């Protein structure tokens, strides 16, 4: 909740390096796509030339046979252009899908390696935008905008070359269109990206407000929030309208300036060609062909121009996706092997924001097989300490070790064989139930192992009556699990991961009270035979723990068995009395 930083964004050179590298990985597809597009465009340029010939032949007087021959040639080029277009499009789309798959897989790999602390200080919104909107935007750019743009560039260059082949004089009218084109385009592109981003953000906001209004409809009624919700929606619409009006203003200037820059060369070619014809320096066919070619330039040039802002946004998305790879790793694998299972924190200090430590020198030793309960007021640093003990964050100073080796020196895969963390968030991943459990299973785990784990947490009963058993799709959009079931899935994952030490961060706190007893039985099965550090706000578990650590103001204020602490008469004793005797 403190000041937000954002995840890094890749710069221009990094972007170019990545693009070149990507191109080098698929030389065959890339060159055949380009080659086919060039050939298809050349075939398409035959029509105006042949039409020019026709006009000239008609003017000079000709036979039907000659006309038929030219038309046959026209049809022949059309067939060639059609075939070339088919394969050019196919190859470039296959290439696009390939590149896109590599991009998103690279990105997801990098996102999965992000330090949790970085994601949290940047806010989950930043990563969410990258995984959803940026991946979509890039998909659109790679699948549609980039090939269309490439084709348009190829076509425009070749069409211009064809126009020049009629005569050098065609350059002059074409030049007329350049100033309005360049000026208009520069003005527009400097403003378009921000304008369209604001616009799409405003629609996300409308959706978000509508969604939370619908999901919270009961609350809206209970607290009489109807008028406020309606006002919130109207505010979002107002912002969206302002964003729309801005981009519309941009287009109101930009579109006409483009239209004029397309119109001027066509009219000028006709005028100049007509003048040269009266001078006798060009033929009537040349004038016709040149005018048609210049007119033909409009379409590809228009596509080049109108796709540019799309590409600009695609490049920005790519920069954000690649930026994720630039987050420095907060773990350093040393290769040392732990010699035991005892967990030790020594003089641990930690801060989320520089200069504001939340832990002030914690020392704690947890014996093998011990049950340690951590209690204390909200914000005292219990959860933070729990996460350091599970190796999620590296301490700023001091060390957290297992068997003498720092937790952040262990590879992630090994770490989870030692310590695992269970929090009050019991996220159910989109996918089948089996996939949800397999996340924690060692390689080669069988269905029997998975079922065994579910059985251990008392969850097999309800899993067996699901429509598709282990193959039932759960998570957002799939079969909805109750909170208690989701929590059991989280516990079954732990059975599969099989660490010797568990850190439980208020693992059962958000559960519906009516399911709590059932879950406590499931939890007991998981805890069997492991070292347990339980962060608790209910005092039952503290009472039954081997030792209780009272965390206050980022320090361990009291440490001892329940009876010792009650006898000592400190803050734990006071709380216990008020809570238990009534």
């Amino acid at each position, binding site marked *: 909740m403190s000041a937000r930083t954002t995840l890094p964004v890749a710069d221009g050179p990094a972007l170019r390096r990545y693009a070149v590298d990507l191109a080098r990985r698929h030389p065959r597809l890339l060159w055949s796509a380009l080659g086919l597009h060039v050939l298809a465009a050349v075939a398409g340029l035959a029509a105006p030339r042949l039409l020019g010939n026709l006009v000239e032949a008609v003017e000079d007087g000709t036979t039907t046979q000659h006309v038929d021959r030219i038309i046959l040639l026209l049809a022949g080029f059309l067939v060639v252009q059609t075939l070339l277009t088919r394969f050019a499009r196919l190859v470039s789309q296959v290439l696009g899908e390939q590149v896109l798959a590599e991009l998103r897989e690279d990105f997801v790999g990098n996102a999965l390696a992000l330090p949790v602390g970085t994601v949290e200080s940047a806010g989950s919104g930043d990563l969410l935008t990258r995984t959803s909107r940026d991946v979509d935007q890039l998909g659109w750019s790679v699948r549609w905008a980039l090939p269309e743009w490439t084709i348009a560039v190829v076509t425009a260059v070749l069409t211009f070359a064809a126009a020049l082949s009629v005569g050098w004089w065609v350059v002059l009218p074409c030049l007329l269109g350049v100033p309005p084109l360049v000026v208009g385009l520069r003005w527009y592109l400097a403003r378009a990206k921000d304008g369209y981003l604001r616009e799409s953000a405003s629609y996300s906001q409308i959706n978000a407000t509508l969604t939370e209004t619908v999901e919270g409809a009961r609350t809206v009624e209970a607290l009489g929030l109807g008028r406020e919700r309606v006002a919130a929606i109207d505010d979002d619409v*107002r912002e969206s309208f302002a964003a729309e009006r801005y981009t519309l203003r941009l287009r109101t200037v930009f579109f006409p300036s483009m239209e004029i820059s397309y119109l001027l060369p066509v009219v000028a070619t006709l005028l100049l060609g007509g003048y040269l014809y009266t001078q006798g320096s060009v033929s009537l066919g040349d004038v016709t062909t040149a005018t048609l070619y210049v007119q033909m330039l409009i379409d590809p040039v228009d596509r080049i121009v109108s796709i540019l802002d799309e590409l600009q946004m695609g490049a920005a998305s790519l920069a954000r996706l690649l930026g994720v790879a630039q987050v420095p790793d907060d773990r350093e694998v040393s290769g040392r092997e732990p010699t035991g299972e005892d967990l030790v924190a020594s003089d641990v200090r930690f801060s989320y924001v520089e200069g504001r430590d939340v832990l002030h020198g914690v020392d704690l030793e947890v014996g093998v097989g011990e049950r340690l309960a951590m209690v204390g007021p909200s914000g005292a640093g219990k959860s933070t300490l729990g996460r350091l003990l599970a190796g999620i964050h590296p301490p700023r100073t001091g060390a957290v070790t297992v068997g003498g080796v720092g937790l952040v020196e262990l590879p992630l895969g090994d770490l989870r064989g030692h310590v695992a963390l269970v929090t009050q968030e019991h996220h159910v991943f989109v996918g089948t139930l089996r996939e949800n459990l397999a996340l924690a299973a060692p390689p080669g785990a069988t269905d029997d192992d998975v079922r065994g784990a579910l059985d251990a947490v008392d969850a097999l009963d309800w899993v067996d009556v699901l429509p598709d058993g282990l193959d039932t799709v759960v998570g957002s959009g799939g079969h909805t699990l109750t909170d208690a079931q989701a929590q059991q899935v989280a516990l079954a994952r732990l059975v599969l991961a099989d660490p010797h030490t568990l850190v439980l961060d208020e693992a059962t706190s958000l559960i519906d009270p009516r399911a709590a007893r059932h879950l406590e039985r499931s939890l007991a099965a998981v805890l069997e035979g492991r070292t347990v550090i339980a962060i608790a706000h209910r005092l039952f578990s503290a009472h039954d723990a081997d030792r209780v650590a009272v965390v206050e103001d980022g320090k361990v204020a009291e440490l001892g068995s329940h009876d010792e602490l009650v006898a000592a008469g400190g803050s734990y004793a006071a709380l216990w009395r008020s809570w238990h005797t009534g």
Partner: protein
Amino acid sequence: MIALPLAHPGTADHRTPLRFLWWMARGQWRTLAGGMAFGIVWMSCQAVLPAVLGRAIDRGVAARDTSALVAFAGLMLAIGLLQAFTGIMRHRFAVTNWLVAAYRTVQLTGRHATHLGGTLPRKVSTGEVVAIGNSDISHLGQVMDVSARFSGAIVSFVLVAVILLQTSTTLGLLVLLGVPGLMLLIGPLLSPLQRRSAAQRQLLGDLSNTATDIVGGLRVLRGIGGEQVFLDRYKRESQATRRAGVEVARLQSVLDALQVFLPGLFVVAVVWLGARYAVEGRISAGDLVAFYGYSAFLMIPLRTATEFANKFIRAKVSATRVCRLLAIEPDTHDPAEPADPPATGADLLDARSGLRVPAGRMVAVVTEPSEDAVRLADRLGMCDPEPTAEVSLGGVPLTAMRRADVRRLVVVSDTGAALFSGRLGDRLDTTGEGGDRVVEALRTASAEDILQALPDGLDTQVTERGRSFSGGQRQRLVLARALTADPEVLVLVEPTSAVDAHTEARVAARLRQARAGRTTVVTTSSPLLLDAVDEVAFLRDGVVVATGTHADLLRSEPAYRALVTREAVATS
């Protein structure tokens, strides 16, 4: 341009989807008509340009008539400029048409959702309503947008056909019949393509969901070390999506090629006929160039017509969904002759359970089985689908009063209560009259630490559904919100289930003081809270079996004692 959003979106005709679309179109007929007028001029400009170019070549270039050439070039320039002007005007009207339809739908949906309140989740899934915001508004907007261009397309098509018919009946008929014919040729390819595209979109959506899961699940993955398994699964899905994309490309590339071939074939046919006429001297060389231009131009109205058909079908589907939502009525209606609400200081009575809450007291309710608590709270707050007359305030049944009066008098804050996005201070002060009560309520809910940690304090923007707060923080903020509303009767369901014992102890101590003189019902099983209230009512199977202080009940009721202290099932 008109000012949006509309102050009142109006009352929609939601009897059928078509009536809804018609109602919508009528409401914005001025901008629709404007769009159509500019659309017609814009397309007609494009339609006549080939004719002007043909004349220019005939009478200007071929005839070596410089003044005619300049005149025709000037005419071309003028038509081009008119096209640029009408084009942008048409676009501006189209955007306005799109926005009016889309925003109006959003406003209608939002207003109806708040009107339905608690009835909404019982009658329709969240996904249905969210789909309106996600895609339906854009479909409804598009059909209004495309209608202006569609009318331009029809007019320009007729215009070109008439010009060609005047030159030659054969050519005119070729255009009039050939263009729609081409449409039909592409048709058979479209449905398998749409099927494959839909399959790929489905996979893309799933893939995007999997990736989005990282955000919510990264901490969980890191906790159990599931990153590699997750990545392997993502790669499998990603490759399946890529293969589906290649399948789409196989068909799509054929369609792309056909879009070169079929219009090309049409051009060849028109030019062939034209050239033969030209050889026979029936038309001029310039006419031939004009024919070529027409046949190329005609693809634009053709595409617009297809677009209109597609978008109209989609808009009808969207209108169906909107109508379904708008047709839902709230479960409860205000009585025909509503009773006056009782004067301040009335007792709350639930005849079914026998629960009586004297005015100004704080009563805790413990139920066995525990799920009865939620039902009781729903009944007390008239949140049931079929509210009962058994609950009364000062002798007046809640059902006899206006819904608005009941909501003002009785506020229920349960565990599912949502926190909305926006400025924190505004979200806590729901009546807008809270003033200093907000700060006081935050203190009562022991939420001062949350406020202190926020750089902007009460001005902080709450993110969607309050996700930037932890579960325990959200619960305290929701409690503070209910306290700020300061209703005559406040019903709290498990208000401290997600906070730690220290905090709970503080809330328990402050709550009674904060609600002094007001009626409060708390359902809970927490000893800390139970110890702090005036009276505890113990319900078994829906009926009050004992009342007294927490200490009294602990002594006199073994079942109560077992339930509250949970001695029998303490974690082993």
